[in-house]
């Protein structure tokens, strides 16, 4: 154990590292926004949607939740071109994250919707709101509030899981770390640094989501 740390050789690769961080942030920003939106739509469909839509959404959710993220990524990036759908590395990575988070957040949000009392729906309906309006204006916000901590954790998990998109050469933080390591051979230092950055990103993301929660839900949930 007389390893000499040497972070100096990373210096010249800082732009690469920095670019990797930006790409990871971009991935999670797009993945979380559209993934949660897809999840909310699917949760609505499964809990309250038309009969014909339920099995379709259920099939999608089970497919995604019972297969590895890496295989989903390969299927989308390497498989889809065979049927004429060409995606860039970034598009492939983003699409996979959206589809993956969409399925997981569907189940989380659905739990929140199903905890809504019948009386909330009936109050909305009796005031003349349609089923959709009642969902949108009465049910959705308290439902999200109930499951916000679980949803936040899932978003952070997807952010951390996004490291595997380097496998299709999307130039995210893990790609940058691999790249630098292959040039300067300082594996310990660069992965130590990458770990610290992922940790910082995860903590920041959690805080951001908590802040968003405070903004979205000014009151504590009471039912």
């Amino acid at each position, binding site marked *: 154990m007389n390893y000499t740390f040497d972070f100096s050789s990373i210096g010249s690769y800082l732009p690469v590292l920095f670019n990797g961080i930006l790409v990871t942030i971009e991935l999670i920003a797009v993945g979380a926004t559209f993934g949660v939106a897809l999840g909310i739509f699917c949760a609505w469909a499964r809990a309250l949607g038309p009969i014909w839509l339920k099995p379709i959404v259920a099939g999608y959710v089970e497919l995604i939740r019972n297969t590895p993220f890496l295989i989903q990524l390969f299927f989308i990036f390497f498989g889809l071109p065979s049927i004429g759908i060409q995606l860039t590395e970034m598009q492939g990575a983003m699409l996979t994250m959206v589809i993956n988070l969409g399925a997981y957040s569907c189940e989380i949000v659905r739990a929140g919707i199903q905890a809504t009392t019948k009386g909330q729906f*009936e109050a909305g*309906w009796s005031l*003349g709101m*349609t089923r959709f309006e009642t969902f949108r204006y009465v049910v959705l916000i308290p439902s999200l509030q109930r499951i916000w901590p679980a949803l936040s954790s899932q978003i952070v998990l997807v952010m951390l899981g996004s490291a595997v998109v380097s496998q299709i050469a999307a130039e995210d933080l893990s790609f940058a770390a691999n790249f630098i390591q292959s040039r300067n051979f300082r594996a310990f230092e660069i992965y130590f640094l990458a770990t610290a950055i992922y940790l910082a990103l995860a903590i920041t993301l959690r805080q951001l989501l908590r802040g968003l929660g405070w903004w979205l839900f000014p009151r504590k949930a009471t039912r």
Partner: protein
Amino acid sequence: MSLIEITEVKKRFGDNEVLKGINIDVAAAEVIAFIGKSGSGKSTLLRCINGLETIDEGSITVAGAQLLPDEIHLKALRLKVGMIFQQFNLFPHLTAGRNVMLSQMVVKKVTEKDAEAMARNMLDRVGLGHKFDAYQEELSGGQQQRVAIARALAMQPMALLCDEITSALDPELVNEVLAVVKELAKEGMTLLMVTHEMRFAREVCSRVVFMHQGRVHEIGPPEEVFANPKTPELNQFLGVTEH
């Protein structure tokens, strides 16, 4: 011309026929109390009038709006007749004022400014003008129920359905809600209420409906129904509730 026409209404839950041919016509500004044993179908009838339940036979119309199962007809019906629930059902993520504003803006496309003015007006009317910005956990049960009344009134319905609206309240809070209802009755609002408050029914109602096993067993002005029950069932029911 009756405001509410209930004609030969039958309602089944599976094999269980809960309403077995109900006929009641309600004139505008009438206040009607529904009394009867648990399970006699009082709530089900009120819920049908608001379209929260479908009916199997017969018809219900409120000011010309007929109960039909599609969303367009349901909306038309519900704009004529509002409903107050035993459990208040305020929207927990909104303030009292926003609770009263929401459906005006969503359903009637009223501007935010007009909706707010209406909300303040209605909250004043139920004595809660100062609670515009309060959330439900900052309100007592009686206050929550009064917000629910204001919320229904803001849609300017022609009639209100009240299903045991004081039953979930602590006894000392019952009167503040009944006082609001009494005021509405005085102003000419048409009210259909399921209630266990016999004294209130006697004082305020124009007619009392005694329901028994899914039928209107007796109907008449309170003096008659309470003082002079014609059937042994009503006699027994009144005996049970008054001791």
